[in-house]
């Protein structure tokens, strides 16, 4: 009985681990995915290197490595908002433009935009406020020519904070819109 319980917890842990599929949202967490487009290291495979595979990205590898290349602006996926604000700040203009350009040139690719809020107040009202942030990102993309059909804006409200403390620096990190591409959600 004890052994089965341990076995079960191991399964639970591994499944949970397999499930934590948060896509790299800020570039820093995208580790060592081989860049086949660079051509420089194409001569052979380095046998000492272990290439991590993310079991959760539905097809194993993304068809568009630039989306995960930390050097590409497309690997940046988050837009932060001011307190009680649903307006995209100027500093994110080039980021939004880059994603709009990618989506308009890859019309088969879809994007899920998730809006988030800080933890204060009603969960359902925060869900509605998070939706306004996701909608703001969606609107900015459609104004740049992205088809509505490629985009879905949803809210996670206060439910998925990227930062867990009750402090202003944390709250501001949680007032956020995240852009996820097909295969990442």
């Amino acid at each position: 009985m004890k052994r089965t319980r341990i076995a079960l917890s191991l399964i639970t842990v591994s499944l949970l681990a397999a499930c934590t599929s948060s896509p790299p949202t800020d570039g820093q967490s995208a580790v060592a995915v081989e860049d086949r487009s660079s051509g420089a290291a194409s001569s052979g495979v380095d046998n000492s290197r272990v290439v991590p595979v993310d079991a959760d990205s539905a097809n194993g590898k993304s068809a568009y490595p630039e989306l995960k290349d930390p050097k590409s602006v497309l690997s940046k996926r988050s837009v932060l908002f001011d307190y009680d604000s649903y307006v995209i700040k100027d500093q994110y203009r080039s980021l939004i433009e880059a994603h709009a350009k990618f989506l308009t040139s890859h019309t088969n690719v879809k994007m899920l935009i998730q809006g988030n809020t800080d933890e204060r107040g009603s969960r359902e009202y925060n869900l509605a406020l998070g939706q306004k942030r996701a909608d703001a990102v969606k609107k900015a993309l459609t104004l740049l020519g992205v088809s509505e059909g490629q985009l879905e804006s949803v809210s996670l409200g206060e439910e998925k904070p990227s930062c867990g403390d009750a402090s202003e620096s944390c709250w501001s990190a949680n007032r956020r819109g995240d852009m996820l591409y097909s295969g990442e959600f």
Partner: protein
Amino acid sequence: MTQRILTFLRGTATVCALALASLAQAQLSIEITGAGANRMPVAIASFEGESTLPRAVTDVVRADLERSGLFKMVELGPSPMGADTPPDFGRVRSRGADAFAVGTVAPSGSGRYQVQFRLFDAAKQVSLGSQAMVMAPNQYRTTGHRIADFIYEKLTGEPGVFSTRIAYVLKSGPRYELQIADADGSNAQTALASKEPIISPAWSPDGSRLAYVSFEAKKPVVYVHSLATGQRNVAANFKGSNSAPAWSPDGRRLAVVLTKDGQSQLYSVNADGSGVQRLASSSGIDTEPAWSTDGWIYFTSDRGGSPQIYRVPAGGGEAQRVSFEGSYNVSPRPSPDGKSLVYVSRNGGRFQVTMLDLSSRQTQILTDSAKDESPSFAPNGRMVLYATEVGGRGVLAAVSSDGRVKQRLSVQSGDVREPAWGPQPRN
């Protein structure tokens, strides 16, 4: 156990309804933090023959009555008093009890027991009523709750809620569980386990189903879940967000909040997800609908600039503003008789459960906490269950509609949140 592992693996990896229930160690424990001013002294004598049960029925009865905050338990000593022997009124009066119960537990064949009890007015020396029920020995809790309901109703004139259940979400580490427990926090069972958030559980009026919002699909989707079978269906999964389910009093339809046509707005759907209709429209956010028994749908809207409570006739019509004080009033829940409304108001940075008398327009802040959320009425309207925070941890708390009686329900580890008080059981 192997079967359980298989069941787990067969289920989707993200959501495993019921299969992991046995792993749930967390038990809600209840603590009384405030009581009514004038508590009636009541004695529950030990029942004759109850020592053969796994635990005494009268322990459950006493704990229930004490917890209500309306009664003060008077000790009668260990010697039992049977249902059929003439009671010793002198002994009871000398201890100061105004009312008392006696009873007998006796085998009734095939391993079952008959529990018979009688309630007396100690001053007038008259019987206030009696009841008999048959139970399996491990049903002593259920039986105790029913006896407490009987006594509560005889002494207060209102139905008790000791046999009701509550739903809430337990978050421990990365894991979310939608749990169902008895109103005293015992018998916690997991209805749904997920690694994604679950919010806004809502009981169907007959208590057989829960509607809730689950984020297992990386977006909010409304499900309807039959508790006895674990079967569930999607009630709303339109493009965008789907949230805030609320049952119509006949249990046929759900008010939901959808963003399929733009901002968060009120719609209704059949419980199977068909027949979507718009309930109201505004240029702002409309959310948190709640159906009253007298034909209104209360909701939160920021159409006037700040989030306030409004209501529309359930059959359609003009919206009326209901809350006027302050700049943040959310999460409305009408009382079962439709005469008052409980909601969360922000008062100088504190979020507190507030009661509004709909005819006198008087408001009363019921709590002294700062992070209250998700209030819901007990089916008799006497208590309000809500979520709050103590020492950085999510706990459940209950407060009487007059603000006097206070209880707290917490777990050893993990956050408890999103409570919903279920309806009276139908049996």
